[in-house]
């Protein structure tokens, strides 16, 4: 289905967390992020959208600049200072959060980190709700130091006062997003949907043999069983035949 068929000019739509996660995850794959880092970057976007920071619009508008994100660029300057080397907040935010939370948990005292040279640092605010899943309270503020402007991430241990992240109903931020969804302009949805679909593998007659209860080989022979199957074989011999599905 093409983005045009989503009718860009229609009324706003309410996206669910599930479908938004799916689309964002696919777009993150397109940026070239290592697959193991995609989930965390996706949650940065979702949390940003939930906070009203227009994460989806930013994703669409800056997609080309997100290609080649390198979370490994985050360097430890000292136990309390990190240099993001102009990496995007979505890329380096999760590691910075982990470090702040780990230090708070390890010492039993609030921990404070300074993050320098982060691109679009305003999205680090998303770490606040994400930290709740780790049973930590986090505040993100802008700090001016002798080395220049930085983002300060302050973490406090809240274990014992919060449930673990994976317990049903205890992630109130997520629960709110699940309940209310994300109201977005139809055109934005169409753009994000189209962008995410670029991660899907184009159809071919060969790839149609990679699923389904029967295979039609190059000679038109049926491989598999056809009992109680009424497949229109044109679907298997012509990859374009279901483009409108």
């Amino acid at each position, binding site marked *: 289905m093409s983005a045009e068929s989503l009718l860009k000019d229609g009324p706003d739509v309410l996206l669910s967390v599930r479908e938004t996660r799916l689309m964002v995850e696919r777009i993150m794959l397109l940026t070239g992020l290592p697959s193991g880092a995609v989930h965390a970057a996706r949650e940065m976007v979702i949390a940003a959208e939930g906070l009203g920071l227009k994460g989806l619009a930013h994703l669409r508008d800056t997609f080309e600049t997100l290609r080649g994100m390198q979370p490994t660029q985050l360097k430890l300057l000292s136990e309390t200072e990190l240099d993001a080397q102009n990496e995007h907040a979505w890329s380096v935010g999760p*590691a910075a959060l982990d470090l702040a939370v780990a230090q708070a948990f390890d010492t039993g005292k609030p921990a404070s980190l300074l993050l320098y040279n982060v691109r679009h640092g305003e999205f680090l605010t998303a770490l606040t709700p994400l930290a709740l899943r780790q049973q930590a309270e986090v505040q993100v503020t802008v700090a001016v130091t002798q080395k220049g402007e930085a983002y300060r991430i302050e973490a406090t241990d809240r274990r014992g006062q919060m449930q673990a992240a994976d317990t049903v109903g205890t992630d109130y931020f997520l629960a709110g997003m699940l309940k209310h969804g994300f109201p977005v302009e139809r055109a934005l949805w169409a753009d994000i949907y189209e962008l995410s679909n670029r991660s899907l593998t184009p159809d071919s007659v060969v790839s149609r043999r990679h*699923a389904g209860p029967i295979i039609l080989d190059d000679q038109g022979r049926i491989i598999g069983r056809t009992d109680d199957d009424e497949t229109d074989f044109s679907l298997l011999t012509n990859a374009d035949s279901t483009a409108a599905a």
Partner: protein
Amino acid sequence: MSAAEKALPKQPLVPLRAAETLMRPEVLATLQPSRVSISRAFIAEASRERWSIRKLQFDIDERAKGRALYRIETPKGVFDFPVFSFEYNPSGRTGRIIGRSWDMMGALVEGPMSQADIDQTQTELPKLYAGRATERSLVWARSNRSSRAFDHTVESLAQGKQPDAATIAQVCYLMRNTGLDGNGTFGTRSFLTLEPDHALRKPLAAQMLSAYLMREFATDLVNCLARHRSPKAAELAPEYRRFLGVGNGSALGLILFANNHPKLIDRFITARETALAHGKSLSARPDSAEVKRLLVLLDRAIRFRLEDRMVYDALVPSSRVAEELTALRKLVADYAASGQLFGSQPDLPFVALCAHAETSMLPESLETLHSMLIDLVPEIADGLAESLIVSEETATQPQMKTGMLRQILRDEYAWCFKMDLSTEASRRYVWYKSATAEEPRRGPREEVEWAFNLGLDLPRLIQELDAALAAYPADRMLAYFLLEQPQFRGIVARVQTLHGLHYHSPHMNIMGEEFLPIQMVRMLNIGLHGIDKTRDFLNRNLRGVIYHGAPLPEDLRAGSHDDWFYPAEPTR
């Protein structure tokens, strides 16, 4: 106190099976439908609560075009299921997700629906991916007829008679589910937002109700079309209606589902194994109600298997299972008569019976026996079936030391380290979704021009994570490891979140040549969903029957009709 807590009076005397044995895909593939399976637990609840399902509207013409509306009233809420029925069209037809021709589409919506919402649903449903569900929608559903059974049934009814049992028993359904989308898809409600006392709060409950309504609609449709053909048409008799379920085809998408729902898998298997352990722990005396009940279940299962007209490729023929169940029945009958089992008077006769079946019978026979033992502890099983609501969110625990994580890997993922992942055969396949209809596919890498792999390469990830961790001091916090190795964030979060659970991940390498997708499809379809008479296609697809023998709406309204497994063919 919850129903689950009330129903779990004590720990079973026998232990649960070890994950090392049970989580092998060839073992999981043999799990049979049981009272803990989702479709059966769903019917048990609907029957217990005497749900009312009524047809409010049915305006369908002789070509099957038109509209119908069903209303479902439960103690916890009212739901509507508008159905939009279409003329049969062979073009673009397939059971696969790439299909573009359906005989019916429907929506399960928290009701009562307004006429405007019904009209809007009718407009939006056919658009599928470009459509948006109305505000209180839970599921969008679509299904196709099984032409053979459907046409024969309409023809027979139009002639004033019931269909030929042998003909319909070759398929066992009139219509087959080709899509049940919910939980946020197309703008439907997320299930985790359903209120704690919501009637469809449990996993897949909304899909199960939708499938039940597909079955009901199929019956109403054949009756309607027969009446259009002849004013003297017969109505499909209740015993036929009960015998006919709703068809279901499943394939590779279920493997991705299992990857993404490890806690649900763990909860389900834990529930099933716990119920089984309670069943095996019964000290059933020879004249006990449990032994009598087991004999009844064995009789029904033997007949069910003997009457099975399906043809299986790789799966065990039902006749062989029937043979072995017959042998088991003799053992149980001898025990009932003499008090002796294998020459002694065991304290736990069902443990002895299972041990015998395990060493001398097909796994399918053993698992059928296991399902029957679960049925001997219905309150416990029903209570455990209530425990499947989980959150699949994951998070890292960055303060954990690398040495601790390595120890968890050694303790809980030993199976991964036993796999040889150095060969090309171990990485032969890539899992991906097609641009058309997002169909999950699995193909040899050389046949796929490009794709983002969507399959969980779990054993390789575990091996690589362990190797990477080995380069760090054991007392280093994981936060520092993830700072330098962010590519492992996903697997670290998964391992940490699932730590302490036993049954979350089948012990398999889904990227390798040796993996048979059908094994996991069987486990999920048969064991989890409770689907009967599943036929295998190309080692990756499965077709089967949901609600084979399940009670009708009038049975549910009367309550107490939850003993419906292993239905007999209609004999009229």
